[in-house]
Structure formats: structure tokens, C-alpha cells
């Protein structure tokens, strides 16, 4: 009967459009994001610079030998030689005859240097010692800076992304609240909850973590490769040669891991669902001697889960050691080719060290990007679903020029109203009737006759296709939704209680309603007594939709809710389910109090209800077929009389 179109999560929107919608929410925080990006770029440069500082330390100060014809010599400046000559004559004499001059540089053979005592060495190489302190301090500054930069960008990004997601959540939530009833008929609660919470969480992850890390990883990889190529082409190419293997291996691993991981999650969810159900229903399992059968079933899912996790472990046990091994292979290649370069006097030891360090960091970003890619995908899917929800039109809203209505007198009129839920089958056909202020009217008719639809239209939960609905002579479309609903209170057939206490369930979020008013309303409808008997009285928490209360008690609470809002118009969709007779008497009593001095519409199932109304409107197949008082309609011996008799003798 109802339109079954759901908002389709699979509906594809181009990525750019999605991103545009997303970045709309990010616009307020783009400065923060930019600063974070800047910090990240700086920290990447530092990451690149740190091994280079060590390289300089090694080649220039720690191991500053010149290789001439395969022999390492220590170069010594003329100035330092002069200083040694003046300050340490003994030392000078011992190295005087070892000095060689080549290309205007004084050289000492490494073999000789290594024979010197530590004291002499520190005298000879005092410049190196000073420089190594300097460069170490530079190193220290860099790592302190890096620490600050890393902390800074993590904090900034998270602050920004948390705020973005907060805004997004509030936006989605208020959009959701404004959507018409027909939307909620089509979409299960669980799915909508996921949109507001989990999907936004995935998007948050993207802002705080994914995008930026990917940028950093790309910067790092390109940075390393560029520097390597500039420094030494042969070694660079050798280092990168394993790169394609890492990429292929990683992609293959990711594809497989994604599949296994999905299975792992599904199975775990199944185990938990089964377990939770079994715990809740343990009494039944024990009473019906189902222990063994269920144990067997639990064992089966559990084993399946175990086997899948083992598959996951095996995959990881191949991939991760393989990546480690590739790292070592790269090291071996550098030792081999780099060693040759050294033998040919094309590079120095520090350079070899630098390549070691770079290669060690080169593979990690690849793994990182692959991991983040999955997150990015799920974030995009979430974005798509969220945008899909935001694109749902708000069909029932205030018109542009509304008429204010603070306190209605309470007359209701339906004028030739036609209504259908799916534009296909008319549920109400040309319905017209008038209810005077203060009158109480009962609607009677078979299931599907259109009784509930009349309520839905009057409250503008749905919109009629044709005809007019007037309150106090004003078309309800010209009223604000707020004014309209302020004047009406609806008591639904199935009582909904929120998971707060009884007091909050009566006043809802309306802070203007005092505790005293709540007590008074409860007293009037005689709910006060049973509430007072609850352990926490009015503060008693309604867990899981108030299952601790009986159906009749829940109904009474919903009555108190309607009474405390003191509406001009009261609508009551009477519950069909039976309540024990003592409560039934209470409810009838309360109903009489509720409808006093207001216009009231009752969808009546109990005959005792119909007794107390001024007028009965009989609906059949979406049409009004009879209007009159109870005795008038009985005398008429028409639809009502017939329907009423059938119900009686069934």
C-alpha cells in the first residue's frame, strides 16, 4: 500500500560532487586545515633532512678521508697545521715527516692516523670535534621541531575535523527531523542512526587522518626518490628497483585482506548476535532442552570464525615478512652497488648510510597508502549515503506567508479532501465534515477505512492531494507547523516511551512545564498512584520502551503527556490490545477527563468510548457514509448499525 521507494544508498553520485558537498562543511575550518598541511610539509622536510644531517656528520667530520689511488688520506688545513705547530710541538714533530702534499692539500695517511693516541687525535682533529657538536645540536633542534610539528598538526587536524563533523551531524539531524512521516515509513531506524553516527565517523576519519597522511606519504616518497636521484643515479635506481614488487605485493595483499576481513567481521557479528539472543532466551533454551543443539550451532559458527581468522593470520604471515625481506634485499643491493661505488671512489660512506636510511623509510608509505585507501573508499561510500539523505526533500514545511494562531477555538473542517499515500490508490475520497469547538467526535469504520489517515492529515504529518482542511476557518497550510501542532495533542495507538524517566516522558523536552503540573496531570487521570508505587516514582527510568510497565499504565502516561500540554484539540487513537479490567476502568475514566472542554477526535474501538462522544462519523472505504449521534445511527439501521452488530456477535 505504501510507497516502498527507499533512498537508495547505491545511487551513484560523481565523486567530485560528493567532495564538493563535503568541503562545504569544511569551509569554515580551511585555515586550520591549511596550517596543518603546512606543518606536515615542514615535518616531511625534516624527516628527509635528518638522515642527511648524519650523512654530513659522517662524511665531513667523522670519516672525512680523501681516497687517492685506493688509499684513504686525512686532509688537514694549513691553518690547523700551523696551530698544532705552535701549541703541540711534540705532536707536530711526530707527523711532520708523514705529511704529503697533493693538489695543494696537506694529507695524512689513514693508517698513520689510526696509530695516534686519543689525546693526539683530539688535538689534531679539534675542528672535527667542534663541528660534530654543532651538527649534533642541529640534529637536536630538528628532532625537537619535528616533535612539535607532529603534535601540532595532529591536534589541529583533529580539532578541525571534530568540529566539521559536529556541524555535519547537527545538519543531518535537523534535516532528518524535518523529513515527513512518509520518509520514516520507508526507512528502518537502524539505517538512519548509522547515517548520523557511523557514516559521519568514517568521514571524520578521512578529514583527520586519511587525506593528510596520504599527502604526507606521497611527499615523503617523491622527496626520497628525488633526493636519491640527485645524489647518485645508479644507487637511486638500484634502491627503487624493488619498488614495483612492493607495490604489486601490497595491492594483492590488500585485495585479499579486504575480502577476508569482511568475512571476519560478518562472522563475528553473527557470533555476537547468536550469543546475545541465546543469553536473552536462555530460560527458553533450558526449558525446552535445547542446550546441546544450540551448543552445536554455536560451535559451528565459532569454528568458522576461527578458520577465517587463521586465513587472515596466514595472509599476514606471508605479506609482512615478505615486506621485511624486501627491505633487507634493498639493503643488500645497496651494500653491493654502493660498495662498488665506494671502491670506485664515486661516493663516501656517509652517502651509503643515507641510502640505507632512505630505503628503510621508502616502503612504509606504500603500505600506509594502501591501508588508507580502504578508509578513503569507505569514507566516500559514507559520504554518498549521507548526501543521499541530505538530498531527501523536506516536503512538509511552513509556507511563505503564514497566519499566526496562538490559541485556537478548536473548530475543524475537512472540505472535499482527497488523499493517497502513493498517488495510486485513494485512501480518502472527497471527505467533508465539520466539528465544532468543544465537540467530541468518534470515528468508526473497518481497518483501512481511513480513520488514521484523517489524523495524519489534520496534524499535517502527510499532505492531502486535493481539498482543504481548516482549523478555526484557517487553512492549516497557512499556519506554521509549530502553531498547528501546539494546538493539537495526539495519543497514538502504540504508546512510545523514551528511555528517560517518567517525568521527562510526560513533559518531553518542554522546560516550561513544571513538576507540579506533571503531578497534577497524573493525579487527574489517576496515574499518580501507580507511579508513586514505583521504586523511583516519577524518576523511574523507562528502560527499553518501558517494558516494566503494563500496556494500560503506558497508556495512562501518554494521557498525562497529552493533558499536561493542554491542547485545544485532542486526538486519541485508541489501542486495541486488551488491558486488565481494573486498568480499563481507569483508562475510560481518564478519557472522560481528557476530552472535557476541548475539541476531541477519537478513533474508537471500545463501545464504552463511543458512549461518551457527541457525534459519530462512520467511514467506509475512504468515504464518510454516516454522521450522527449513537442513537440516531442505531435507529437509522445503516452502516453503523450493521458494523456494530457484526462486531458484537463475532
Amino acid at each position, binding site marked *: 500500500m505504501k510507497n516502498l521507494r527507499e533512498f537508495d544508498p547505491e545511487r551513484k553520485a560523481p565523486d567530485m560532487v560528493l567532495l564538493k558537498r563535503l568541503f562545504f562543511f569544511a569551509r569554515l575550518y580551511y585555515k586550520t586545515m591549511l596550517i596543518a598541511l603546512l606543518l606536515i610539509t615542514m615535518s616531511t622536510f625534516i624527516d628527509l633532512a635528518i638522515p642527511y644531517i648524519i650523512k654530513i656528520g659522517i662524511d665531513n667530520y667523522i670519516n672525512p678521508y680523501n681516497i687517492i689511488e685506493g688509499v684513504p688520506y686525512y686532509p688537514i688545513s694549513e691553518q690547523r697545521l700551523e696551530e698544532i705547530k705552535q701549541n703541540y710541538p711534540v705532536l707536530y714533530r711526530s707527523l711532520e715527516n708523514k705529511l704529503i702534499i697533493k693538489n695543494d692539500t696537506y694529507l695524512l695517511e689513514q693508517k698513520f692516523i689510526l696509530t695516534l693516541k686519543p689525546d693526539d687525535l683530539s688535538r689534531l682533529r679539534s675542528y672535527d670535534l667542534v663541528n*660534530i657538536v654543532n651538527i649534533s645540536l642541529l640534529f637536536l633542534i630538528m628532532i625537537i621541531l619535528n616533535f612539535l610539528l607532529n603534535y601540532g598538526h595532529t591536534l589541529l587536524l583533529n580539532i578541525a575535523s571534530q568540529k566539521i563533523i559536529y556541524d555535519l551531524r547537527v545538519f543531518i539531524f535537523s534535516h532528518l527531523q524535518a523529513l515527513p512521516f512518509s520518509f520514516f515509513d520507508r526507512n528502518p531506524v537502524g539505517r538512519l542512526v548509522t547515517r548520523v553516527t557511523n557514516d559521519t565517523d568514517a568521514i571524520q576519519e578521512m578529514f583527520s587522518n586519511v587525506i593528510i597522511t596520504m599527502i604526507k606519504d606521497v611527499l615523503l616518497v617523491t622527496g626520497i626518490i628525488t633526493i636519491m636521484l640527485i645524489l647518485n643515479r645508479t644507487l637511486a635506481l638500484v634502491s627503487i628497483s624493488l619498488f614495483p614488487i612492493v607495490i604489486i605485493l601490497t595491492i594483492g595483499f590488500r585485495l585479499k585482506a579486504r575480502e577476508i576481513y569482511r568475512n571476519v567481521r560478518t562472522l563475528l557479528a553473527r557470533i555476537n548476535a547468536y550469543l546475545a539472543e541465546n543469553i536473552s532466551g536462555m530460560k527458553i533454551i533450558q526449558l525446552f*532442552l*535445547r542446550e546441546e543443539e544450540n551448543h552445536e550451532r554455536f560451535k559451528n559458527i565459532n569454528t568458522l570464525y576461527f578458520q577465517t581468522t587463521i586465513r587472515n593470520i596466514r595472509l599476514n604471515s606471508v605479506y609482512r615478512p615478505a615486506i621485511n625481506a624486501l627491505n633487507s634485499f634493498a639493503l643488500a643491493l645497496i651494500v653491493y652497488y654502493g660498495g662498488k661505488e665506494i671502491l670506485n671512489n664515486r661516493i663516501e660512506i656517509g652517502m651509503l648510510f643515507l641510502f640505507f636510511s632512505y630505503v628503510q623509510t621508502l616502503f612504509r608509505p606504500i603500505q600506509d597508502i594502501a591501508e588508507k585507501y580502504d578508509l578513503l573508499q569507505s569514507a566516500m561510500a559514507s559520504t554518498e549515503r549521507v548526501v543521499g539523505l541530505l538530498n531527501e526533500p523536506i516536503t512538509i514545511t511552513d509556507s511563505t506567508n503564514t497566519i499566526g494562531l496562538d490559541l485556537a477555538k478548536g473548530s475543524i473542517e475537512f472540505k472535499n479532501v482527497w488523499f493517497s499515500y502513493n498517488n495510486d490508490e485513494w485512501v480518502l475520497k472527497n471527505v467533508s465534515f465539520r466539528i465544532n469547538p468543544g465537540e467530541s467526535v468518534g470515528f468508526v469504520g473497518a481497518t483501512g477505512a481511513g480513520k488514521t489517515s484523517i489524523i495524519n492529515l489534520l496534524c499535517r504529518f502527510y499532505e492531502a492531494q486535493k481539498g482543504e482542511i481548516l482549523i478555526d476557518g484557517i487553512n492549516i497550510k497557512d499556519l506554521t507547523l509549530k502553531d498547528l501542532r501546539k494546538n493539537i495533542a495526539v495519543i497514538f495507538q502504540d504508546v512510545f516511551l523514551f528511555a528517560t524517566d517518567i517525568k521527562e516522558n510526560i513533559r518531553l523536552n518542554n522546560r516550561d512545564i513544571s513538576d507540579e503540573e506533571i503531578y497534577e496531570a497524573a493525579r487527574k487521570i489517576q496515574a499518580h498512584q501507580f507511579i508513586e508505587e514505583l521504586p523511583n516514582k516519577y524518576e523511574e527510568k523507562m528502560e527499553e520502551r518501558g517494558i516494566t510497565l503494563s500496556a494500560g499504565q503506558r497508556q495512562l502516561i501518554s494521557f498525562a503527556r497529552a493533558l499536561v500540554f493542554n491542547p485545544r484539540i485532542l486526538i486519541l487513537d485508541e489501542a486495541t490490545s486488551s488491558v486488565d479490567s481494573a486498568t480499563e476502568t481507569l483508562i475510560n475514566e481518564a478519557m472522560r477527563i481528557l476530552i472535557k472542554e476541548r475539541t476531541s477526535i477519537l478513533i474508537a474501538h471500545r463501545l464504552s468510548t463511543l458512549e461518551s462522544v457527541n457525534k459519530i462519523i462512520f467511514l467506509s472505504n475512504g468515504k464518510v457514509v454516516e454522521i450522527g449521534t449513537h442513537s440516531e445511527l442505531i435507529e437509522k439501521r445503516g452502516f453503523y448499525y450493521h458494523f456494530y452488530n457484526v462486531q458484537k456477535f463475532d
Partner: protein
Amino acid sequence: MYAILLKFIKKHFFIYLSGILLLISVGFLQLLIPQILRQATDEFSKMTATVSSISNYALTIVILAIFMIILRYGWRMLIWGTSRKLEKIVREEFYKKLQTLDSNYYNYHKTGDLMALATNDINAVRLAMGEGLLLITDSLFMTVLGIYYLININFSLFLAVFIPLPIIALVVLIFGRLIHHLFKRAQEGFAQLTSIVQESISGIRVIKAYGQEEGELENFKETAGDLVNRNLDLVRIWGVFTPLVQFLSSISLFITLFYGGRLVIVGAITIGDFVAFHAYLGLLTWPMMALGWVANILQRGKASMQRINEVFDQVPGIKDLPDVNKAISSIYGQIEFKDVTYQYPGKEKPTLEKLSFIIKPGETMGIIGRLGSGKSTMLNLIPRLYDPGEGEIFIDGHNIKSIPLRVLRKYVGYVPQETFLFSDTIKENIAFSFPHSSLNSIEEVLKKAQLYDDVMSLPEKLETEIGERGVTLSGGQKQRATIARALHINPKILILDDSFSSLDTQTEEKLIKAIIEYNKNIGCTTLIVSHRVSCLKHADNIIVIDKGKIIQSGTHDILVKRPGLYAHLFELQQLEKEDSSRYEES
């Protein structure tokens, strides 16, 4: 639990041991690589290296790497795999244990709490037995061996360089705890947000009808804002953590450069030593972190183990005693209560007080009373969901405790007040006790429960899935399904605990009448609780319970004439009827 764990470790001792040995071998090989680099660097520095020597070094690294692949694969499979196996066994035993615990246990333990044990706590135990083991081995072995190598190179440099490393372990230890705590807080915040949205959407009709959107939005904003704060609290700490560990390990490198560089220059160590030092430090950061993690993981595992243990240590309240009479293999259905008193743990007053009555096989007893008068508790004593505190219950003259539990329950059909069906097919739910029984038997009880036509009109008929997904049955259909489930076991005692509240009066009366008649024919003792006097009038005997005591008993005809609660309820309900009849006459 400890017994399970001990048994498991005993059985898998060699697997664990080989896993640990492989892990140690990996560590050993890993620590050889810096030695190679050390030698190579020294040769390069002195220019004594040759093509053949560097080929040797490169080749050695490759061979080591290949060995390590195999060893790493091995320990991962052994240690991770075994820890998963442990998880599997513990979960299974946990489930088995749950099945032995009685209703009173479940009255005082929430499903959510037990689920937390089955998920979070079992997980923590697995981590302790997998990751924990890995971390202990790594941190101890790698640290000791690493330190040995470092000292071997130069003791004073080792001392200088080692200063920041224990701080890493300390940072991980402290931050690990803090982050764990903050992470939990953030998760709770998220759960709160989820539940508030869930509430809002479920109750959207009420919210709209009463124009309460703004208030709801305010609530939502408050909770969402709280979540933001909790997340940022976490980020503030967690954001320091990684950079701090990185910084501390870099401090070691700084000392290597600063002091180690100096030592090379003054000839105390070689450039090869310097490079090796550097490489060792890179390998030592992880074991230091491991040292910090392991304390947390083991501590959490231990706490979780204790929590799980509380369940395993629970002695089932309801079970066969050693002196159970194994000769009893069936029952006829005579029930006798003799001064039965029952008091729920923690309650001040007994729910049932000195209850006595006898029901002959095949008779029907009606039970009526106000809400909370003890009717359900009394019925629960018959299939031994609870055992009475004082007094005795006899079935066929045997003390109920002397009848094997399985025999007793095999013959007691129970329809609880709250409908509980499993998210499975209708067939599975009806043939709950005998999953492999014939379709005929299922259809037969469906007819008796007057549910047959309803089921046959469903698209998948008996195979229709009920529960979260697919068709949900109406309240009345669900109640009739639970009746069919109880009838399916061919009970000798049938208990109907106000099982018709979702049916209208006429249907309830009709169904009860049919069941009473049928049971009379086959000689099945029946106990019926109902709010409606009219439903009980067919019973052979009726008892009226108030505040845990029988205040009236007799047949309908007798009770109606006596002043008391029964007559009062009868009059009230009669008035309703007459109220309706008036319209008929007008």
C-alpha cells in the same frame, strides 16, 4: 577458567615453545645484520674491501633475509594461530557454562554485561596470550642481546645512548593506560550519541506531534558536543604519544652522533662501530615499546580473566543432585505444592508464602491474582527455573528434586508471559525441542494453536524467517507460536502464564477452551494464569493468589458466589459486558 587455560597451555606447550624459539631465532638473525654492516663499513673506510668481499656481505644479507621470512612465517602462525585457538575454546566453554546457569543468575546479570565478557574480555585474554607472549619474548630477548652487542662495542657509549630507552618503556606504559582510559570514554560518548539518535528517530512521531524538535536538537547537540570533547581529550594525549616515542628514540641517535662521533674521531671506536650502533638503536626502539605495552596487555588480560572467571566459578543453582532417582524416566502429571515459600535473593519479603495445593493428572487449574501477586514465580517452580526456599514440591509423589532435570523438563510445556522467539524460521521455532521432527507434527500443533492459517498465508510458510529481518509476526501470532512450541513437545504438564494478552477476549476464550478440552482428553495437566474470569471458568479448579498466598480456591461456580477478590473481578468484568449489551437493546 584457570583450569581451561592451564589445560590449554599444557596441550599446546610445544607449539608455544617452538613459536618462541622461532621468534628468538628471528631476533638473533636480525641482530646479525648490523654486524655485517659494521664490518663492511670498516672495510670501506680503510678501503680494504674488494668486489668479492662486498658480494659476500650482500649475499649474507640476502640469505639471512630468506631465513627470516621462513622463521617469521612460522612464529606468526604458531603464536597468533594458537592464541586464536585459545579464544575459540574459551568462547565455546563460556557459552557452555552460560547454559548451565539458572534463571536467577540471569535476573541479576544483564545481557549487555555478559556480552562484554564474551567480546572485550575474551579478546583481552587472547591478546595477553598472543601479543603478550610475543612482546615478552621480544622485549626480553632483543633487549638483552641488543644490550650485549652495544656493550661489546663500547661501554661508555652504551651507557650514554641507553638513557632515553627505558623512558620509552615508561612513556608507553603510562600513556598506554591513559589512552586506553580515554579511548573507552570516547567510545562511551559514541554509544551515547547512537542511543540518543536511536531514541529520537524511534519516537519521531511523538516528537513531531508535540512540536518538540527544537528540544531534541538541543539534546542532540549536547551529546554530540560532549563526544567532540571526549575525542579531543583523547587526541591531546594520543597526539603526543607517537611523536614523543619517536623523539625519545631520536634522542638516542642524537647521543650516538654527538658522543659516538666524538669517539670515532678520537679513535676509541671505528666508523663501522658507529654505523652498527645506529642500526642497533633502530632495532631496540620496538622492544622498548614492547616492554611498556606488555605490562598493560598482561594487566588487562589478567583483569579480564578474573571477570570471566567469576562466571566460570558460578555454581549452577539448579542441577541434578547426586541422589537423583535415575529410575524415573517419565511423569504422569500430578503436582503437589506443600508449604512452598520462595524469596528472591535480595528481596525483603517472600514472593510466595506457604503455598499448598494438589492437582491431579489431567486436571486444569486456573490461577488469578493481581499484578505481582506471585503467579509467575509459582509457575516457574514447576519446571525448576527456581527451587523453593522452604517447603517441597512433588510430581507424581516424587520430590521434584529427585526427578532428573532432563526428564522433568521433557514433559513440562511452558508458555511464558513474555513472548520469546528466536530469529530463525517458524519451523525451527515451533520444533524447538525436536529440530528434526516431521512437518506433520509441526502442522498439527500449529492447528491446535490456531496459527496454521496465518502461517500458511505467509510467503515462505513454515520457512518464513521471523525476527529482525523479514516478516515480523503480530503480537498475537507470536503468542500463538509460543503455545504451538509448548504443545509440540507433547507435554504432560502445560503451563500457560498469561500467554494471551495480545489476543482479544473472544479469541482468548475460544483458544483456552479448546486447549483445556484437548488436554483433558489426552490427560495433560494444565495450569492457566489469566486476567479474565471468563477464560478460567472451564478450569476444574481455580486458585486466587494475593501477595504470595492462596486466598481463595474452588470451581468457578463456587467462587462467584463467595464474597472475595474473584467475585469482585467477575462483577467488574460482567459490568463491562452489560455496558456493551445496553447498546444492543437500544
